[in-house]
């Protein structure tokens, strides 16, 4: 499987380095605010859109303060992911201005430096990166030195770059890449000896790592072609032969070996790698170049018939390739490339999934591999994918609006219905009469206590007995002059005394029982009062759940409609940009092959002329195929 953009995987990295540096240094987190924890939960799952939404909402509602600057750093990193450089810069600058700890300042300067570096503002990047002191992790520090080295190289300050590279000794991986960058830069500046010395350190690198193997191949190609340019073909061959036979640079290595032999006038030897390339796919520019180099060399060797034959082969191959390119150009114009690049499933971590999948099935894609690997194309492509996701997100919100309006309508209808039935409900007034009755009762209990009115707390049986005793008393009063009732009088007094004794001794417990019941009544009334108050409050608040939202929803819907139009328009512009870049790239390839084709046709005609009219032929200055031996062409 060939993952899409395998060669550079640049954009995923551009997008994720800032936030990953954050994650690496801060993992594991102590969560003191649930909202921050939630943002982290999505962040760790590469759901950056939800994560940034969580942080932005928290910031708007009630900023997270319990996590110190962590949320700000995360938000800054996420802004960078979405290429919102100004917002990210504001956050990091703010952290610096807040006079935070050296560690935070270092991280903020590091991120600002990296941001500027990615934006190709190398001088500004250097100014930020040099402000970092000593608190970065060793890994981040190595990255900083690497960026610094590259900014110095950009300014051709090789001494300063070398000083930064020396700091990478403890990080062999970083060191290799930095040395490669510096070596290539030195050679391009004409400092061949210094450049080749550095590149030689990578040239024979022993490694099992595929990426480092690829770097070693690149180094050997760079060295090989550098020596060809310096007219040192034997040295060149030594390096070109180190390039792996099965790799993306093998064709270029074989082509270079041929040119190195050619330079030494070892024409037969030169033909060997080129003839090998003849059976390779013509899509490779090195193969295209070798197609013309073969007959040219054969002609030099005096093997004119073979040269004629191979010029014809080359012309045929170029024609086929031109036809293929025509189809590809037509396909791109018809939108086939966009169809291939458009993700089948639009998810939140669309970027990660898109860059892991195989190259899209498009007839133009094989010709666009170089373009697809270019960082500036990948930036456009990332923006395109971002826009597709944002468009989907807005469309999802758009669908919600009808439900919101319906909800408001239902809420209003329900409220009115409830209000009507509540108004009719007599139970709402009951509480007032209950309260009055309770107050009367409480007053009575108070009087009983004050007056020590023991009869008031008598039981029904006792009250019956008292009533009977009162009747007996009346009867006895009527018979008071008759001595024969003395015993009855004594009995009456005894019974009355016993009854009063029972009631009066039980007065306190009875009083407290009544008091307790009164308290329970108070509690029950209290709950009812609260519920009534809550009901009244709800009646007041309920309209807020629908009346205030209508305008808010309408405003947002209007804004959303405008943004959707804008997203659609800019997505289309982005698509046009992708198509334009693809077409430019294909046209460039087309012209290059057309040029080879013209040269092959001209050479063929010239050779025919020479063979048929030998006396008249004079060697033209443009006989040699205009082969550019510069690496990277």
């Amino acid at each position: 499987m060939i993952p899409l953009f395998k060669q550079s995987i640049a954009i995923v990295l551009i997008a994720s380095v800032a936030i990953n540096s954050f994650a690496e240094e801060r993992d594991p987190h102590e969560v003191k605010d649930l909202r921050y924890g939630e943002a982290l939960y999505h962040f760790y799952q590469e759901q950056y859109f939800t994560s940034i939404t969580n942080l932005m909402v928290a910031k708007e509602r009630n900023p997270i303060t319990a996590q110190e600057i962590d949320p700000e750093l995360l938000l800054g990193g996420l802004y960078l992911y979405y290429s919102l450089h100004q917002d990210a810069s504001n956050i990091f600058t703010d952290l610096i201005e807040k006079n935070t700890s050296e560690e935070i300042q270092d991280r903020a300067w590091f991120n600002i430096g990296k941001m500027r570096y990615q934006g190709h503002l190398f001088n500004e990047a250097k100014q930020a990166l040099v402000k970092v002191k000593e608190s970065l992790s060793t890994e981040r520090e190595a990255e900083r030195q690497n960026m610094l080295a590259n900014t110095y190289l950009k300014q051709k300050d090789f001494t300063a770059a070398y000083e930064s590279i020396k700091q990478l000794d403890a990080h062999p991986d970083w060191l290799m890449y930095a040395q490669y960058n510096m070596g290539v830069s030195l050679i391009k500046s004409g400092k061949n000896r210094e450049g080749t010395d550095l590149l030689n350190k990578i040239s024979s690198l022993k490694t099992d790592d595929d990426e480092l193997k690829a770097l070693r191949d690149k180094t050997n190609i760079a060295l090989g072609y550098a020596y060809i340019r310096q007219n040192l073909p034997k040295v060149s061959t030594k390096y070109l032969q180190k390039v792996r036979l099965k790799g993306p640079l093998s064709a270029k290595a074989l082509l270079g070996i041929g040119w190195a032999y050619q330079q030494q006038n070892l024409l037969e030897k030169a033909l060997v790698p080129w003839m090998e390339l003849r059976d390779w796919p013509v899509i490779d520019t090195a193969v295209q170049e070798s197609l013309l180099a073969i007959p040219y060399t054969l002609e030099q060797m005096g093997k004119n018939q073979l040269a004629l034959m191979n010029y014809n082969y080359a012309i045929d191959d170029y024609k086929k390739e031109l036809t293929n390119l025509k189809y590809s150009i037509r396909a791109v114009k018809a939108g086939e490339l966009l169809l291939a690049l458009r993700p089948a499933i639009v998810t939140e971590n669309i970027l990660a999934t898109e860059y892991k999948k195989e190259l899209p099935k498009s007839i133009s894609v094989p010709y666009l591999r170089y373009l697809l690997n270019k960082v500036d194309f990948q930036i456009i492509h990332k923006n395109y994918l971002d826009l597709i996701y944002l468009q989907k997100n807005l469309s999802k919100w758009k669908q919600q609006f009808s439900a919101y309006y319906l909800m408001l309508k239902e809420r209003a209808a329900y409220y009115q219905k409830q209000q009507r039935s509540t108004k009719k409900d007599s139970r709402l007034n009951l509480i007032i009469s209950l309260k009055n009755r309770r107050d009367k009762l409480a007053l009575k209990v108070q009087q009983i206590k004050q007056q020590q009115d023991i009869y008031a707390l008598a039981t029904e049986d006792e009250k019956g007995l008292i009533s009977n005793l009162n009747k007996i008393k009346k009867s006895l009063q009527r018979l008071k002059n008759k001595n024969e009732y003395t015993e009855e009088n004594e009995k009456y007094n005894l019974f009355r005394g016993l009854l009063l004794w029972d009631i009066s001794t039980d007065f306190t417990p009875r009083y407290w029982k009544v008091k307790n019941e009164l308290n329970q009544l108070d509690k029950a009334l209290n709950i009812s009062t609260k519920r009534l108050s809550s009901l009244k409050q709800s009646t007041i608040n309920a309209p807020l759940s629908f009346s205030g939202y209508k305008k808010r929803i309408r405003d947002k819907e209007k804004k959303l409609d405008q943004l959707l139009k804008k997203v659609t328009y800019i997505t289309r512009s982005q698509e046009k940009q992708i198509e334009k870049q693809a077409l430019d790239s294909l046209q460039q390839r087309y012209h290059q092959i057309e040029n080879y084709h013209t040269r092959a046709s001209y050479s063929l005609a010239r050779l025919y002329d020479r063979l048929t009219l030998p006396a008249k032929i004079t060697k033209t200055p443009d006989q040699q195929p205009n082969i550019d031996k510069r690496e990277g062409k």
Partner: protein
Amino acid sequence: MLHKNFKYLTTILLIMFVSTATFAEEKSPVLEKQVQSLKKEVLELNKELFILEEDLLFPANTQFSIFLSMDIGNLFDLDSVQINIDGDNVSNHLYTLREINALKRGGVQKLYLGNIASGEHELVAFFTGKGPSKRHYKRGTTIKIEKTSAPLFVELKIIDNLTKQQPEFKTKVWE
């Protein structure tokens, strides 16, 4: 691996800017700026819509959220969580490896967002997974909660008790 990739990226960046004279000087094209500004606008609107929806669907006086977090999480391999409120099942969640990793790294999952009436409620959470001896493990935890007019947040925490070598399931009500 990532940093290696990044180094490769920087290599490519460098190759490009040393070999293309105009590349570094290239300013951000108009379209790119438009895209950036649009992204900011969409993010802002998304935030506003998120707040609007929350206000509309989950007003503060009834809003109730349940979160789940892990402290280390080595003694319990979480498979699923079931949430019951007052005897009604309101949420079930089956975990992916990606989610478990996010939890172990300190992420906090919003497991449930809903509305409940003011007053006392009972929340029961059942955790299913594999315990320390890799045997099937099901635990429940119950908490009585009092809903007032303010939003209510409850955090369910899975904690490794290293002394007992057992997972513990705790709850915390956030102010």
